[in-house]
């Protein structure tokens, strides 16, 4: 597992993909990097926004 875990947020509905948790329901285990998600990944909650629309959440 990499040292730095990032969070990415859907700009439409606010769903957040947190690499440290992955997304168990969708079948992505903890530590699964956002960049490794498939190119056709869409937001699991709203399905309106594509992978490239997600914003990196900056934590202070």
């Amino acid at each position, binding site marked *: 597992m990499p040292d730095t875990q990032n969070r990415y947020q859907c700009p*439409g*509905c606010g769903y957040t993909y947190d690499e440290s948790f992955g997304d*168990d*329901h*969708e*079948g*992505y285990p903890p530590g699964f990097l956002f960049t490794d998600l498939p190119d056709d990944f*869409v937001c*699991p*909650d*709203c*399905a*309106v*926004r*594509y992978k490239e*629309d997600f914003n990196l959440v900056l934590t202070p």
Partner: protein
Amino acid sequence: MTTYSIDTADQSTVNYTDQKRWWWLLSLVNPLTPLFGIVGHWLTGSELWLLVPLGMMFIMGPAFDWLFGEDENNPPEILVPQLEQDTYYRWLTYLTVPVHYITFLAVAIWVGTHSLTWWGFIALTVALGFADGFAINTGHELGHKRTKVETWLAKIVLAVPAYGHFWIEHNRGHHRDVATPDDPASARMGESIYQFARREIPGAFHRAWMLEHERLCRKGVPVWSIHNEVLQSYMITVILQVGLIATFGWIMLPFLIIHNFFSWWVLTSANYIEHYGLLRAQQADGKYERCQPHHSWNANHKYSNLLLFHLQRHSDHHANPTRRYQSLRDFPDLPSLPSGYYGMYVVAYLPALWFKMMDSRLLALPHINGDLSKININPDSLDAIQARYGQADA
């Protein structure tokens, strides 16, 4: 009446009172419509009462939409979070689930214990099918939400019309592919509802199964297992419907077949009118532009929206699929239907009338302006449409 209030950064206060707050109870009691027929039959002995529920849907529905008109009520965006947190609204969706079960079982018992004429049987069963088609609407509202309670209630209510795959197909398939040729749940210009149904019903099932198959494979879980969210709802359906056959005998078989078909048909009808001919542009990378408000048809009529948890404010729903029904807004200049869904269903069942009414309305939309290349056209109808309305721009 609850008033929501917030102080803004410029020292002003925004207030909003939802004038429809108590009127939303209509969505809760709407599934009870077939019981009017049963009560009338019980009190008078006349099976003519069994025709009343269909009349309430398809005569009273469009008439009340015409009578009560459109809805100016729109919540201010800044107060939407407060409106979403008000649990009254979500309790109405929770309680609609048992209402669907009560109606379904009451009608099944009535059919199973009375010797009805063939037409009385069909009228009551078809009316129940339409009422339980609205169970798909209830499942739609619940299935879009993120809480476990709501997603489970969606699976439970979708078991009534035997359409448990809907919320997977809809949330992860239809919302991704809407208004594109790839979507079996978006109708194409020139496609009649009868052609559309043959593409939509099997296409929806196939897409749901494939999406669930992919998800379970990623998790390393067998597809044929309790973890399959399509099968979870189907199992409730099997218990419910096999239980009725075991209790009341083979009369339940035609009853359930007709009921299930017409429940599915309601969804087909809604899908048909919600995106007819609308098309998202394809980008250079092959992906489609993100869904915009002009990719859905809307009906802002008060009466039918109050029966359907605001389903007809469809553009805002596709822009914000997780937004709760009480917060959905209407906007000026959206593609709009001339009547609410009840009236437009009737028009859709008469393809010549539908094409006459809707094709010119589609072509006149500002973002299309007669350009056939911006329309999702049925390939089989392309030559006829080009001959009638002109060539698509290259």
